[in-house]
Structures are given as C-alpha cells and as structure tokens.
C-alpha cells in the first residue's frame, strides 16, 4: 500500500517530519515500511512557460520560450502541439544538443510531470503558477496491514502519524453533506451476512470529463489510473477512507432498484476489466431488475459503467463480508483494490462517511451536478460499540515496564479509543468502529497499542524469575545426536534430502505409492509423493558426488512418512548411510557400515536374506535384526544402479531404540583363570559364519565364556570350494580352575558336533 506524504500532511497539518524519518517511525510504531519513492520528480524547479516562437527543424520544433525570468531560452521539442502562443510547463534538465538544437531544459507532458496519463503532447497549462511539488511516496508492506482495515486508506495512516508525532488529525468528512429529502432510489438487501450495509446517493446532470490535475496527481502518484471525474472520485475516496465505492450509470440500470443477492448458479457478468465471469451461488452480486450489474465488493459490470455519455449516476458505498469476498476473489483469481480492502473486514460505519466525502468532492469537481433525493441506507443492525476492561497493573506486567496511567490514556485517546476510569488501576476502553471489526477484541490488543506507542526500545531486557527446574529429556533426540557424532567421527558427512519423491522414483525403488501421501499441489510433477524411504535420496547423493570424488561416505537422519489415513501418518526416523568407492571389490565398505551399525547398536545381527529388492546386489544383501525384529538392511547397490561400489545401511531408528537392551549390572571379573584353544572348521565357501558360531556355542555347553572369530582362509591346503574359519574358544568357571580333562571334554564335544554337521576340523 502506497501513501502520499503530501496527502498525509493535508490530514495532519502540523506534521513537520521529513519522509525518511517518518518512514522509520511508522516502521517501529505501526507497520513495516519498504522504502520511500519520489513522485513528480520533474516538478522540482518547473516553471510556467509561454512559447514565443516555434520553428520546425526536421521532425523537431525549435521553440523560443519565456519562463518568466531572464532572457527567453531555446528549447528543442518533439511534441506535435508545440506552437507559438501556447502556455505550457518548462523543466530544467540541463543544456544539451538535441537534433542539432542547443536545447536548454525541456517542455513536459502531463505524464512526464506525473500529473496524469496524457503523453501525446506537452501539457496545456492555464494557470499562472505551478502549485505542485514533488511528493514522497511511502511504500508499506501489505502483509503488515493484514489486521488493520483502517490502514488501507490515508486517513487511517494519518491517524497513526498524528498519534506518533502528537499532532492533531483533521477529518476530511462532513456528514452534514448527506442529503435529506425524498427517496431517490430503492435498494433491497437479500443477505445481510453477505452485505451488512448498502448505502447509495445519486446525482443528475453530471458532465463526465477528465479530473482536475490535483486529483489526477494524487491518483497517479499512488499508481492508480486517472479515468474520469466520477470514477476518480470513487478511487480518491477509497484511497483516503479505505472504503471502496462504485459508480453506476443510472440510465443503463434496468428498473428502479438495486438488489443485493447471491448469484444464480451459472450467472454471467462481463466485468469492467473486459473479462466474462461465470458465478455460483457462493458469490454475491448487485443486480438491477434483470441481471447482475456488479460482482459484490470486487468489480463492477461493464454494461452499467460510467462512459463519456453518462449524465445520471448512482454511487454505491457498501460493506461486505470479508471471508465471502476472499473466497470469491480466490476462486475467480481476481484481486482488485476493492477486494483487497474488503477482505480485511471494513468498518460498516464507513459507508456513509465515504458518500459524504464523495458529495464534497463532486461539488468541487462537477459543480453543475445535482444530488438526487436523499441517502438510501440499508442495514439490519450495526454492531454495538465494544468496550474492554484494561487493568493497568496487568499492562505493566505484560510489557515489563511501568507506564503511567496518564500516558496510557493519552496514547489510547490519540488512537481514537475512548477511555473511562473504572476503578483502581482499571480503565474501560471503547474501541473505535474501524478497529472493532477484527483487530481489537481483548485487553492484550490494548497492551500492543500502548507498547508500540511507548516504543519497545523503552522496555529493559530482563531475565524472568522462574522455578529452576530440569527440563524433560527426550531420549530419542539425545540418541540421534550421539549417532550423528559417531558417524561424523567415522568419516561420514551429513546430508539433508528433500521429503518429496516422484512416481518414477517410487517405481525404480519398488516403493508402493499406496503407502505414501500424495501432494495435491506439488511444486513440480516430480515432487508429488512424500518419501516412504530415504534410499532414493541417498542414491541421488551418490550419483552426484561420484562425479567429484573416487571415494566418500555420507549419511542422513530423516523421516519416512507412511500414509495411514484416516489415522495420523506414521513418521519413522531412519538412518541411511553409504560408503562409496569407484574401485575395489566392495567388501570394505560393507564391513565399515557393519561396524558403524554395531557402534550404534551392539546387539544388532546381520543375517542373510532371500528377499532381495531390485536395487540391491542379490549376493550382498542382509537383513538387520535385534531379537526377532527386523530393524534395517545392509546391502551393496546393484551394479545396474550405479557405477563403482556403493554400500548402504538403512536403519529404523525408532524400532532400534525401542529394542535396545536395558543397561545391565556389571559381571564380576572371573576369580579363576580361564583357558582358550583354537579350532578351525573347514566348511563349504557359502556356509555362513554366524550360523556356524551359533552351533559351536550349543556344542560347547555351559563352561563356554566366549567365542572369537580369528580369521578365514581359502587357498592351498584347503580344498577347492571350501574355506577354513578359525575360532578361539575360551572356557572357564566362576567356582574353580578347570582341569585339563574338563577342557578337553569341551573341545571334543565341539569337534564331534562340527563333524556331525559334515565339516572337517583342525585344532
């Protein structure tokens, strides 16, 4: 929203603060300013100029002009209307050679001066003086005005400025101008929720013409197109009072009545912007006897709009339901200056104020027009004035600073609140109508009014006085942090991947789209599913980084999101880690990851699996268990997926944490020495070591303290297709030193057992 500094100054006559400073004050007291622009910059030093002679030179004119002081000067001018005897405006832009003419300054068009749209020729000037000066335009961030319907007009901002600078505010509205007398026009409101208030005045004998320059200048400098006097008046009032208005050509309305009603399903309207809209019963319209003539609160219809031939007009000034306007505007993708304001919940008291202001402007701009009959003003009930109790001690405690009651009162009154003493430390505060629609409803809202006006910089920072309590700890978070530290120490770099995947990725990684939540409004068509696995992201990381590195490690801790609608989705934290090497046989990467796994969960078991996914190496894939539960997978990427060797660990952290054993009490250190012996088992190459170890444990019996895998070997001395696996068996007893007979008995049992499995042993 743009604000004209000159306009604010008209409403706050005592204001004596430069725009750059005012901008800062508004930012820290009211709403965020995005900067100050200059409008009408060329008006600086502009003079009324009489063209003494005009001599064509090629396509240009060499004009000799009198600028009211000194000798006449020569100006080159390309405008077709440049002629001897005319009065126009000269602007000092320096001396330069234009088309062979030594030109001093330039003659300006209305558009160049910022005084209107006209840019066909230089401006025709009738006055002896130029009563315009460059203006500063403050640009205020619309988002910071969301809750302030009043700040969508200059008067609202002027009120803030007056309060901040302790100057007086001048209200431009004179309600006495509202006409009395017999009814001129009928209105019927069918839906007071849609339209709480609908107010109308009419004018006859209107002559449509361009607006005077001062009016055009105001609109132009705020980025609004001047169109004609009547339309410009509606825009001026909207920009001043935040109340959008609409003007109809009365002679194009069929019948004597405007009806406010929901649109008929499929009803059409050709709007002022030339678009044809098809409406539904959820939209509101203003209709005449036969058809919709305006889309309520958003845009007028073309068929009944003001044209150069118009002589009788109807001014509409209505109040519309904010969420209704918002919905229609969103559905039709049509945001207008009017809809933006009505969306903010405008003040119903403002409709007649706007009409009074429009009447005042008509008297100046169209003095020959006659007002037709009295004000037509239809409403059911206007909201009662709202009062809020404000406890001053609560105010001080919430701000963290004492504000003297007189200062509180002054601040609120300057913002047009009414303040009444209602007891000890208690004010009863009445909210002005334009703040009551959705902004101010509670004492806390008043705390904000006082806080921003005293300035938050006057509140000292202070630590709170609170109980010294230990916050609850989240074991998950503590553990994730340990895992991150562990992984980083072991050479893994942490990545963050997006939560989105594509249908194509789901297919490639054999994920079921039925298990996933789908994004209804994705940014791109390849980001339309929520990830149910971290693995596709990890593969993308591998593919990217292998272009730059021969070997690397990375990991991510992130959430899989599984669809369980109607229940809440399940978000399962996972660790995905990968070791990549362009060369080598791939073994070390897998075992490195296994080591990481065991560092995270020592009780995890890596077991062979028959069910292999298409992106996994079929002979290098394992399932990870804790107890009987599957908690993850360890695998090498299938060679068709990536060049080189990529080992990948995928671990369900939630389940792993749940299954982690409790910390056990310590075991005493054995009092009696234990004994150890080694046994090598010659087994077929693909016999799994872990399975063999389990059997050895069974054979060894209760005296076994531990089994340690020492080495594997295949080659000379071991038959083709076989390998030797050597284990160190440690036996002992807490009660005594074992005799050699007892030790030998254990060894013999193991040897016998292993042979029973069909394997040779060596000791």
């Amino acid at each position, binding site marked *: 929203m743009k604000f004209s500094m000159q306009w604010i100054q008209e409403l706050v006559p005592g204001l004596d603060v430069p725009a750059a400073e005012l901008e800062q004050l508004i*930012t*820290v007291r009211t*709403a965020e300013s995005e900067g100050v622009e200059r409008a009408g910059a060329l008006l600086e030093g502009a003079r009324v100029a009489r063209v003494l002679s005009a001599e064509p030179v090629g396509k240009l004119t060499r004009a000799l002009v009198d600028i009211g002081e000194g000798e006449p000067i020569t100006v080159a001018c390309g405008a077709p209307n440049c002629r001897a005897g005319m009065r126009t405006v000269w602007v000092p832009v320096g001396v330069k050679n234009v088309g062979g003419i030594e030109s001093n300054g330039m003659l300006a068009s209305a558009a160049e001066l910022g005084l209107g749209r006209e840019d066909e020729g230089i401006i025709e000037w009738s006055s002896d003086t130029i009563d315009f000066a460059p203006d500063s335009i403050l640009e205020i961030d619309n*988002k*910071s005005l969301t809750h*302030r319907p009043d700040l969508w007009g200059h008067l609202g901002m002027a009120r803030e400025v007056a309060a901040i600078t302790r100057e007086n505010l001048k209200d431009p509205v004179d309600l006495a101008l509202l006409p009395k007398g017999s009814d001129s026009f009928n209105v019927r409101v069918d839906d007071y929720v849609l339209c709480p208030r609908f107010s109308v005045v009419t004018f006859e004998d209107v002559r449509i013409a361009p607006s005077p320059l001062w009016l055009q200048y105001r609109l132009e400098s705020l980025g609004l197109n001047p169109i004609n006097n009547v339309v410009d008046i509606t825009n001026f009032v909207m920009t001043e009072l935040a109340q959008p208005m609409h003007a109809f050509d009365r002679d194009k309305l069929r019948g004597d009545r405007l009806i406010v009603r929901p649109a008929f399903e499929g009803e059409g309207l050709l709007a002022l912007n030339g678009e044809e809209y098809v409406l539904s019963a959820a939209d509101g319209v203003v209709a005449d006897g036969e058809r919709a003539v305006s889309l309520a609160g958003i845009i007028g219809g073309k068929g009944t709009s003001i044209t150069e031939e118009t002589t009788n007009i109807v001014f509409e000034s209505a109040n519309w339901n*904010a*969420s209704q306007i*918002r*919905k229609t505007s969103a559905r039709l993708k049509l945001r207008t200056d009017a809809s933006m304001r009505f969306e903010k919940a405008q003040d119903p008291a403002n409709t007649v104020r706007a009409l009074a202001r429009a009447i005042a402007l008509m008297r100046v701009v169209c003095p020959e027009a006659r007002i037709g009959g009295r004000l037509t003003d239809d409403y059911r009930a206007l909201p009662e004035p709202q009062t809020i109790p404000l406890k001053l001690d609560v105010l001080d405690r*919430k*701000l*963290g600073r004492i504000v003297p009651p007189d200062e509180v009162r002054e601040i609120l009154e300057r913002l047009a609140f009414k303040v009444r003493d209602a007891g000890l430390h208690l004010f009863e505060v009445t909210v002005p109508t334009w703040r009551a629609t959705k902004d101010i409803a*509670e004492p*806390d*809202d008043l705390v*904000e009014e006082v*806080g*921003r006006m005293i300035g*938050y*910089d006057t*509140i*000292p*920072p*202070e*630590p*709170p006085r*609170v*109980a010294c*309590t*230990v*916050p*609850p700890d*989240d074991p998950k978070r503590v553990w994730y*942090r340990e895992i991150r*530290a562990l992984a*980083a120490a*072991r*050479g893994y*770099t*942490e990545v*963050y*991947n*997006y*939560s989105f995947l594509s249908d194509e990725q789901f297919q490639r990684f054999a994920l079921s789209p039925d298990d996933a*939540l*789908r*994004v*209804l*409004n994705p*940014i791109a068509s390849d980001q339309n599913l*929520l990830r149910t696995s971290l693995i596709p992201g990890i593969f993308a990381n591998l593919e*990217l*980084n292998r272009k*730059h590195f021969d070997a690397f*490690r990375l990991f991510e801790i992130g959430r899989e*999101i599984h669809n369980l*609608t*109607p229940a809440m*989705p399940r978000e399962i934290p996972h660790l995905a880690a990968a070791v990549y090497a362009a060369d080598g046989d791939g073994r070390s990467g897998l075992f490195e990851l296994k080591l990481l796994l065991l560092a995270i969960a020592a009780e995890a078991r890596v077991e062979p699996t028959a069910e292999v996914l298409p992106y996994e190496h079929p002979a290098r894939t394992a399932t990870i268990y804790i107890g009987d539960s599957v908690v993850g997978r360890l695998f090498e990427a299938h060679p068709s997926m990536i060049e080189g060797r990529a080992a990948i660990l995928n671990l369900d952290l939630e389940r792993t944490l749940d299954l982690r054993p409790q910390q056990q009490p310590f075991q005493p250190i054995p009092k009696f020495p234990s004994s150890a012996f080694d046994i090598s088992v010659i087994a077929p190459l693909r016999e799994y070591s872990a399975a063999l170890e389990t059997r050895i444990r069974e054979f060894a019996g209760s005296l076994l303290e531990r089994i340690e895998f020492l080495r594997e070997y295949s080659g000379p001395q071991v038959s083709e297709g076989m390998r030797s696996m050597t284990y160190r068996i440690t036996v002992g007893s807490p009660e005594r030193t074992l005799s050699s007979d007892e030790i030998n008995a254990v060894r013999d049992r193991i040897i016998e057992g292993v042979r029973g499995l069909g394997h040779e042993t060596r000791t």
Partner: protein
Amino acid sequence: MEENLAELERDSVSAIAAATSPDELEAIRVRVLGRKGGALAEISKGMGKLAPEDRARLGKLLNQAKAAIESALESRTAEFESAALTARLDAEWLDLTLPPAGVKPGALHPLTQIQQEIEDLFRSMGFAVLDGPEVEDEFHNFDALNIPPDHPARDMQDTFWLTGGWLLRTHTSPVQVRGMERYPLPLRMIAPGRVFRNESVDASHEHTFYQLEGMMIDRDVSVGNLIYFMQTLLTEVFHQPATVRLRPGFFPFVEPGFELDIRCLICGGSGCAVCKHSGWVELLPCGLVNPNVLRMSNIDPDKWNGFAFGLGLTRLVMMRYAINDIRLLQSGDLRFLNQFS
C-alpha cells in the same frame, strides 16, 4: 712382576681405546680379565710364591691395574652404546608432514550444528527440546494457532496440501500446541524442525527449510523477558553482543506480535547492502502468546501467559557462513558439506 703388570695395564688401556667395535672390546675383556686364562689371572697365580709383604703390595697393585682396565672398558662400552643410539635415532627419520592413513572425520550438516548449539543454550536455561510431526492436521497448524479458515496463510499457494486432508506443516508452531497438550505448566520449550512452504525454489527461496520454535508459559512473562532471551540467544549464536529491536508485526498466534530485527553485523548499523542501508536485519517473528491460543489449549489466560518466537535456522546458517544460495543446503553436495567438518 711389577713391570709385567704395568705393561699389561698400559697395553690393555691402549688396546681398549683402539677398539673399533663392541665385539673387539669383548675379546680384549676376555683376554685380559677372563677368569680362566686371562692375563691378570695368570699374574695373580704367580703371586703365591712371593714373600707375604711383597704379596700384599703386589696384590694392591694388581687390584689397581684391574680397576683401571675395567673403567677403560666401561667408558669405551658407553661410547659404543651412545654411538649406536645416535645412529638408530638418525636412521629413524620420519616425515610427519605426510597425511595420516585412515579415515578422516566427516562433517555434520551446518544446520545440525547451529541447531545443536541453540538446543544446548536453551536447555541450559531450562527449556525442553520437543519434536512434532512434519505432516500435520489443520487444527494444529492453523485453528489452534488462531488462524481462522479464511486467513491468507491457508491459501493454496502457501501450504502443501496432502491426500487424506493432511498438510505439510508451514511452521514449527504446531509443536507449541502439542507441547501445551502434553506437558504440565509452567512450560519452557523449543522445537526445531523441517517446515514447508509451497514456493518456487531459487537462490533465496526454498520450499523446505528449518525453523526453531520457542515458547515459555509461566505466571508473569513480559515483553522485557522476551527481549532478554532473544538478546542472549543471538549473542550466543553470533559470538558477539547482539542488539535487537522489536517493532509491530502481525501474527495471529501472538498478541502483541513483533518482528525482531538485529543490528546489522556487517556494517554495525551504519548501513550496507546486506541490511538494505537500514542498519537492521529482520530476523524473527515473536510475541506474547495470544490468549486465544492459550484458551484453545485449555489454559486460563488470566492465570498464565507467555512468549513465543520462531527462529529461521536456515536464515541463521546463511548469515553465519555467508551462504549466498539456499539450495546448497539440501543439495547433498559434499564439496559444500565437507567444508563444515
């Protein structure tokens, strides 16, 4: 006999001095001092034939000669040992400027690092660190935060809507609500996490970014307390005293609501391109918790109040490391990420 002794001593000492290896030295020792057949032993054998007074005198001389020879042997041995040690030390020259073998540490993501720092800071001040779901319902993401159904924040262009009526949380604020549902009062909590906005991605915009929500509910929490925490937080994060200012900002879940600006760390407030010549950089929205939000969570706003803030972790990381392209953070590119080890 006396002469023999003197000669033996002289010869031995000079032979010891001339020895060139420990082996040669050992040979001399055996030849001179050997218990059987050593030269000294031979001389002492002849002593039995002497008169007792001569025997005593010669015995003394013999001991003197033995001691002299032993001492010469000992010092020559020490010389050899010291030379050997010197030679070994020299031979063991090692180039310690070589890079070590083995795996070099990886790096934690810069967002993780800054998040952990801030978590530690707030834990030290008694705040619990909470987690919440990334997929939310409308109630927790909007209604419970005093964002009514027709508020602009619910527009299709801001929120990712999902099948089943779910949505991706647009801020970490729903964790406030879940915190109030779950924990007794008074409550001090922060909630870091991933949030989503339906926005096209470019160097300064992301659809996925990271926030850290904070909330404190107690008996008398003031704007002054909020300023204290924010100043402490930012001083810690930027490792230098931070000056902050509050100005009005509208967020439905706080009242009063603020935008918090930090005095520009680049120019110190005199104005530069980073702060758009204003001397201030907009950093985070905050405010006192709106009574409606408390009521929605069944908390009596006449008895309890509090503050809340939403810190943009992504933005903080970009400021701290002067990162000029937000997309790098989720690129998975190790050329970028390895810089943070």
